């Protein structure tokens, strides 16, 4: 299996652990992630206003590029996933945006949302299957109590992202279970960590991150995993260090024995 892959800016710098272990693990699972040639930043936030067209074009380019390769597009960073998936919905459903975006880009074949956008976790769940993943685990993470932190961007708005139940998601818990560890369900896992206000209002961002980590810890989690570099930063740097935070791909690499081999 080969997928087109959009890493995004942060995964090439501060968030490179998310990227490195993600690729290595997929390789180990027999899946190739082929980075899109000359990709550009997705734009980091999805512009919700109906008259914002230019700010969506870089995402459209990525989508077109995947379409031209005839592959599904895999994303890893929560923010990139959110932006690209929603722009894709616009291109498929909103004629106003579609017409204008196509006018801007002057493509040979106009784009109308044909590319299927998958998050890395969706590939694990829907394409590979957690049962199969479980069979591939070399070093089960037995005895570890892990809280999944979803945040906002993967889940909401559920009408567009169709990722999981927005109020009671299970994909990361199933993922943790497949790796042999014990998932800890805590209610704050789909609440915002406050990361977006870290530049604007750091004390507040810290307070939110603290609430998330406290809830996870009080429900018995000993560590946290996330799919978002901004959440990672906020929980780690502003969260008071109450619990260790990891990218979920790093956890995957550990369980598959990939991390050890590379280290």
């Amino acid at each position: 299996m080969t997928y087109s892959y959009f890493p995004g800016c942060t995964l090439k710098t501060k968030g490179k652990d998310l990227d490195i272990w993600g690729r290595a693990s997929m390789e180990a699972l027999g899946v190739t992630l082929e980075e899109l040639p000359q990709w550009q930043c997705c734009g980091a936030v999805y512009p919700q206003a109906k008259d914002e067209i230019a700010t969506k074009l870089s995402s459209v380019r990525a989508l077109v590029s995947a379409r031209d390769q005839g592959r599904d597009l895999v994303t890893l960073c929560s923010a990139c996933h959110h932006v690209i998936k929603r722009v894709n919905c616009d291109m498929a459903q909103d004629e106003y945006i579609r017409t204008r975006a196509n006018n801007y880009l002057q493509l040979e074949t106009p784009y109308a949302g044909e590319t299927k956008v998958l998050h890395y976790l969706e590939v694990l769940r829907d394409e590979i299957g957690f049962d199969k993943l479980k069979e591939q685990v070399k070093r089960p993470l037995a005895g570890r109590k892990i809280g999944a932190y979803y945040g906002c961007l993967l889940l909401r708005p559920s009408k567009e992202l169709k990722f999981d139940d927005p109020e009671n998601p299970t994909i990361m818990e199933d993922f943790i279970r497949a790796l042999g560890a014990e998932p800890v369900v805590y209610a704050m896992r789909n609440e915002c960590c406050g990361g977006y206000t870290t530049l604007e209002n750091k004390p507040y961002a810290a307070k939110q991150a603290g609430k998330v980590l406290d809830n996870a810890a009080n429900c018995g989690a000993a560590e946290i995993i996330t799919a978002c570099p901004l959440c990672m930063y906020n929980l780690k740097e502003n969260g008071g260090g109450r619990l260790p935070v990891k990218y979920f791909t790093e956890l995957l690499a550990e369980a598959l024995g990939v991390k050890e081999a590379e280290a």
Partner: protein
Amino acid sequence: MSDMTEIVKRISGVNPRKCMKCGKCSAACPAYDEMDYHPHQFVDMVENGRLEELMDSKGIYMCLSCFACLERCPRSVEPAKLIEAVRLAVVRQQDKNHLKPEQIPGLLDAELPQQAITSAFRKYRK
């Protein structure tokens, strides 16, 4: 200002009349205490043309865009879109950018991901 109200309604795609004033948006909002006007007030004030007050509010920069209000609204009013539209109405005006490039160096730290800066630029300036 009534023109501006129309623009905000149009670019947000929000119909404030769908609101049944249940307040679930403000109940779900994690940034409630940081905002001077709260999500349900945005809906009400746009409907009643009180846009100027909203545009002057600091709350528009406190919204986390976490979409909890949008997801949990029983009437699909989607206040998050309205708040973003009001913020856009402000930063699209001349010299109303909320974030200036020269502020950035002072805000940086070693671990801060690019994403934080890019998104702040996207959200707070035009």
